[in-house]
Structure formats: C-alpha cells, structure tokens
C-alpha cells in the first residue's frame, strides 16, 4: 500500500529541507512537471512499514490560475488526489502562511500542517498554542524545526495516521465565510451539484473559484448547460457583496485568520533582530551596491583561484588515461578513446572544479538569504534595462559560466523576462573564453593586452544590454513583471546544506552538459580525424573550414580560423588547442607566432569579439533547450548570436579598414 504525500508551502519555509529529511538523497528523483519548465522532485520513503511516495510541489503563496507553478500545485492536488497534503508553515510568519491553509481546506485536501521553524518563532518571542490552533482549523499540526530534524518522526507518524484516516471520516468545512458569501456559494453548488464537474472536483471549491472568476474553472464550465445560469449568479455576486468577490474572499480569509490567531498566538515585544541589523547595511542606499560587489567578487575569486590546482589534477588524470589508451591495438579505437573521449572530453571536464565551486558560492549566498537582497538592490537598474531585478544574478553568474547562470533564471517569474535573460546571457563573457583572449591579446597587443581583454568583457555587457532592450521593444514586448519579493530572515547557511545544494545543481549540470559534451567530443573527433590519416586541412573539419571560409572572408577569417571556430563549438576554450593542431605547433608562444605571421591585429581583435559573441558552446545550447523548453527559442538564440557576432565583426573590420588595415 503506497500512500502519495504532497508537500506544499510558501517559498522560504524550509520545504526542501523537510523533503530531504523525508527522502534520502539516493531515492530522490528530479525531473520536470510534464510539459513545463518547473522542476519536479519526488521520492519514496518507508515509515512503520508503510511506503510513502513524497511529491514536492512548487512553493507558492496562493493557488490561483494565474501562475504556472500555482496551477501545477493546484492541479496535482485536485486531480491526483494525494492521500495527504503536508502544508509546511513558517511559524515565525504564521499569519500569511495560513492563507494557503485556507485554500487547501477549500480544495478539501487531507491536510497535515508541519509548523516549521518553530525555533525561529520562539526566538522571535512568539508563543503558539498548537492545540487550540489545531482545533480551530480542524487540522492536525506537528511543530518541527527541520534543520535540526526536530519533529520529523512525529510528522511521519502523523502523515501515516492521516493517510489511513482519510475517507473514513467525511471532512466537514470548519471554516465558513459568513452568511452572504455562504449563500452565494450554496446557490452555485445547487446549480452544479448534479453535473459532471461536481463529480470530479469538490463542489464547494468549484463554487468558490467561480465566484472568484478563476480563469481555469471558467474554462471548464464553458459550453456546459448551466453556464448561463452560473454567469448570472457570478455577475450578481458583485452587487450583493459590494465589491469584487475575489477581494472580498481574500479579505474574509485574512479576517478569519486574525480571529483564529487572536486566541492561539501571542507575539512578543518587537525585537530588533539580526535580520534588521544586517539589512541596515545590505540594503543601505550608499553601501548596498559596494557590499554586493565585494561579496560577488569574493565568490568569483574563490571559484576560480581555489579550484586551480584541482583543475590540474583532473587534467593530469585524463592525460594519463589518454596515454594509457594509446596501447589499444585497434588504431581507430585508440584514437577515439584517447584523443576523442579522454582528450577532448577530459579537457572540458577540467572545468568542473570552478563550476562546482561557483555553485557552492551561490548556494551559500542563497541559503543565507542574501541573494534576495541582491535582487532587490539591482532591481532599479534592471528595470531601466527592461529586465526584472532577479535577472541580475544570472547575468552576473554568466561571467563565470553561462550554464549555471541560465539555470539560475528559474527564479524569474515573468515568462518574457526569463526568456530575454536566457537569450542574452551567452553574450556575457564566460570563463571559457578567457584563454582565447589571453592568447590573441598577448600575441597581438603586447602591453595593451590587458585592456584588450577588459574591452571584451565590456563589449559583452554592452551587447547583452542593447539586445535585451531591443528584444523588449520588439519580439518580447511588455513591461517587466512587477517586482514583488519576500525577503526571508537571514540564516547562517549550514555547510552540510550548502554542499547538498551545490551537489544537486552540479550533478544536474553534469548530466545535461555531459551528454552534449560527450556527443560533441565524439562528433568533433570524427570530423577532425577522418578521412583517416589525412592531415588537418584535408579532414572533414578542414573541409568544412574551407567550405565556409568564403562567408567569413569579409571578416578576414581564413579556413584555419573558421575550422578552429568549429572546434570551439564544443567548448570555447578549445579554440586555442585547435589553432595549435591546425598550425601543427604546440605551446602558446608557438601558436602566437603562427598567428602573428598570418594575421594583422584587426583580424585578431575581430576574432576575439567573434569568439565572445558567436554561437554558445554545445553545453550552453543544451542548457538553453532545457531551460526554455523549446527548440524554437534555442535555434533563435543560435541564429541571433551568429548574426550579432558577424555584424559586430564587420563593424570592427570596417573601423580597422578606416585605420588603414586591410
């Protein structure tokens, strides 16, 4: 007998901690809700001989039809009818959290409340009479402090008990909304109660949704025989209540919450908390941004510098593997495994340490609660750029690696805002492009090399901003979604918790990027090694280079550069090695020498800009597909980046021509 248990709650209530407490990591399964880009987590656990399937619903404040994650949560409860719905509440913030409880009771879900962060509430000076609250709501409540695993056993006990009890006792609505509203609800229930909908969904809930003019439910009654009758009642409701029923209901729910809490909650004197103190500086008018800059700079420094030796270790490991595979008798196989897989893939996998460290840094900032403040501080600037405040973090992460950056766009609510952020993210110069800049700038620009490299970062930002504005004005028109964000209390991030976070994201990244990288490495190996035995120029890659070269002639690129750009589709840092292979030289100085002999500085600079802007690496493309959920936008991004790179390249070449270089 397997019971399905859904977890639901506001954001920041500790839902994921409870999920992790209930389901050990190994038994967790992360995917997507079908057809959507919202993450779905589920897993199994066993308690007292009963098997429980735990499903983590998206964190929401409400269950309207207006937001994707709210609809997902709502539909799951109404259609899958889980045996138990565990509503996780932040005890230190109980008033607003109870709103969702009311909505769940309307849905006639079998609710068990986990009154989480009980320890935080106590620190705040709150005294909650759990028994009384439970009686008034008609729901069992288990106090928990998930981070210390307090209350988890009792919670599991209660879940199993509630699951077994379900259906044995008919749930009577304990919460009622006053005469006027209840009359309206009843009149609607009378109309629909014999219909098909009422068999599938709780009639009372349907009635309430209809009064609220819920888009999804209205859709469901379209074309039904009682549609007109219903619309009449709905229209008349506004007059009866004196205001929009939706607002009246919301007010009523909160009124009831106040009444209930009046007898079961005692708030202590208002304390000046750690959060108040920290926020004074973190969102300070003058210091807010500098502190933000300092923290993120520290994070990047950590991610890159602390990971350096580990990158070498991984590189060494794959080098040894590649050497070992040279002994494989079959020459082609030896090359495939040695050069293609261990060589190509191995080189890219050396970038795992910085990416994981970056994830760790982000997890710490997020778990502590600081990230919300960062989004807040940046909102003003972002708004002017036609973006959402939350777009800033992904943009910033892009300087490390575009892939975690794009994964970070999940917290952006507006679809269009998210899409724009995803589309322009690759223009931000990621860490992989740096080796290319260093090689070219070092070769062509001598003492001005550092400035040349800085100009690439600057160029990336400018292009990203311009394109964001352009997209906002044309294809993805509209105002950025209103910025409303809850700032959770600051919490010392636990090492354990942040590492788990980092691990989850890192593994996700590896799974997705890894598949594309492996496939890409093998394809590239094939293209450059075959026809077998031929030198680079005559290999397929070389042939492609020659074939495409005329297109790039205006930019001054010959087949060699084009071929290396094709190589770099796998990972941009490969361009350096690729040039080495193509020129049949080894070592940066030698490659530099070869470049110097063949091209002028303008072409060098154009190549830098082109590397910055053109098609993102395969792993990024894969991430785009996953995050946007559509091939249409992924291909659009491919084309967009290529076009922008080409245009900018032409501009640079043009300026160069004016300056006398041809």
């Amino acid at each position, binding site marked *: 007998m397997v019971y399905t248990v859904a977890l639901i709650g506001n954001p920041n209530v500790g839902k994921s901690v409870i999920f992790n407490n209930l389901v050990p990591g190994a038994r967790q399964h992360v995917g997507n809700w079908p057809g959507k880009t919202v993450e779905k987590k589920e897993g199994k656990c066993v308690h007292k001989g009963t098997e429980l399937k735990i499903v983590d619903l998206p964190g929401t404040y409400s269950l309207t039809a*207006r937001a994707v994650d709210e609809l997902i949560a709502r539909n799951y409860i109404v259609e899958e009818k889980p045996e138990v719905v565990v509503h996780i509440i932040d005890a230190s913030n109980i008033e607003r959290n109870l709103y969702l409880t009311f909505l769940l009771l309307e849905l006639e879900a079998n609710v068990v409340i986990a009154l989480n962060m009980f320890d935080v509430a106590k620190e705040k000076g709150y005294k909650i009479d759990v028994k009384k609250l439970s009686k008034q709501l008609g729901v069992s409540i288990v106090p928990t402090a998930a981070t210390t695993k307090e209350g988890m056993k009792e919670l599991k006990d209660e879940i199993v008990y509630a699951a077994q009890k379900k259906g044995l006792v008919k749930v009577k609505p304990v919460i009622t909304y006053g005469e006027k509203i209840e009359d309206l609800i009843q009149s609607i229930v009378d109309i629909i109660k014999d219909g098909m909908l009422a068999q599938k969904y709780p009639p009372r809930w349907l009635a309430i949704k209809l009064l609220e003019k819920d888009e999804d439910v209205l859709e469901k009654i379209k074309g039904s025989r009682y549609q007109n009758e219903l619309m009449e009642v709905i229209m008349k409701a506004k007059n009866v209540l004196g205001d929009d029923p939706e*607002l009246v209901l919301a*007010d009523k729910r*909160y009124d009831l919450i106040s009444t209930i809490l009046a007898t079961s909650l005692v708030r202590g004197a208002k304390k000046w908390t750690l959060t108040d103190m920290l926020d004074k500086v973190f969102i300070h*008018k003058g210091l807010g941004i500098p502190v933000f800059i300092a923290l993120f700079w520290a994070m990047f420094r950590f991610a890159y510098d602390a990971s350096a030796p580990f990158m070498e270790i991984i590189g060494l490991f794959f080098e040894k593997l590649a050497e070992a595979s040279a002994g494989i008798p079959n020459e082609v196989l030896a090359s495939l495994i040695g050069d293609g897989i261990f060589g190509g893939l191995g080189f890219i996998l050396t970038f795992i340490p910085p990416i994981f460290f970056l994830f760790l840094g982000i997890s710490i900032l997020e778990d502590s609660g600081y990230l*919300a403040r960062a989004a807040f501080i940046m909102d003003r600037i972002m708004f002017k750029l036609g973006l959402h405040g939350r777009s800033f973090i992904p943009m910033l992460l892009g300087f490390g690696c575009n892939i975690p950056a794009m994964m970070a766009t999940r917290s952006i609510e507006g679809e269009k805002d998210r899409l724009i952020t995803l589309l322009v993210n690759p223009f931000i110069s990621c860490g992989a492009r740096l080796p290319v800049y260093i090689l070219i700038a070092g070769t062509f620009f001598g003492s001005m090399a550092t400035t040349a490299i800085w100009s690439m970062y600057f160029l990336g930002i400018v292009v990203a901003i311009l394109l964001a504005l352009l997209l906002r004005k044309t294809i993805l028109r509209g105002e950025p979604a209103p910025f409303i964000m809850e700032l959770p209390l600051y919490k010392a991030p636990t090492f354990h918790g942040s590492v788990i976070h980092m691990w989850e994201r890192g593994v996700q990244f590896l799974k997705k990027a890894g598949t594309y990288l492996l496939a890409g490495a093998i394809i590239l190996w094939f293209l450059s090694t075959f026809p077998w035995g031929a030198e680079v120029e005559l290999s397929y890659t070389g042939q492609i280079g020659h074939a495409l070269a005329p297109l790039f002639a205006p930019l001054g690129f010959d087949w060699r550069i084009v071929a290396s750009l094709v190589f770099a589709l796998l990972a941009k840092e490969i361009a350096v090695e690729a040039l080495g292979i193509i020129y049949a030289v080894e070592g940066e100085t030698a490659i530099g020498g070869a470049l110097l002999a063949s091209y002028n500085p303008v072409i060098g600079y154009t190549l830098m800009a082109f590397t910055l802007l053109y098609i993102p690496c395969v792993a990024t493309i894969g991430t785009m597909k996953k995050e946007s959920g559509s091939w249409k936008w992924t291909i659009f991004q491919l084309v967009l980046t290529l076009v922008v790179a080409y245009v900018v390249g032409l501009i640079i070449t043009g300026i160069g021509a004016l300056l006398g270089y041809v």
Partner: protein
Amino acid sequence: MMEIPLAMLPVGAKGKITRIRGGRGLVRRLSDMGFTRDAEVTVVCSHSSPNPGHGGPLVVEVKDSRIAFGRGIAVKIMVQEVDN
C-alpha cells in the same frame, strides 16, 4: 485622514492599507502576500522619494514578513498613516 501612496511614507512609518489601485492581477497578487484592506504595513527601508519618476524600491513589513517591491507598485498601494 488623508490617504497617500505607500511610496511617500518615510522609513519607520506605519500605514493602514485603504485600497490598491491596480489591475486585478496585481491586487490579487498583493493580497495573497498579505496586503489586504486594513492591513498594517511598516516601512523598513526606502530607496524611494516623493518626487515622481525618482526613487527606487521599497521594503516593508506586513503580517510578520518582509516584502520588497518596486516603486511602481509602491505608488499604487494607498495607505492612511498610523501613529506609532
């Protein structure tokens, strides 16, 4: 007493919400987060200013939680100032 936009309240001031001028979506969204009629809000931090077109986002405390939002929304929430 006069009702003024939340954006105009100084830091530390308290207000009682009278109404929210906005589309249905916004009003519903805000009320889900606790901004209902008669709810008391305290301004925690303001990068806003009385001048129209100037100023930035706001952080307020409502129903035990801290919510941050842009000025565009802050001018749509009408409150009556409450004495401390």
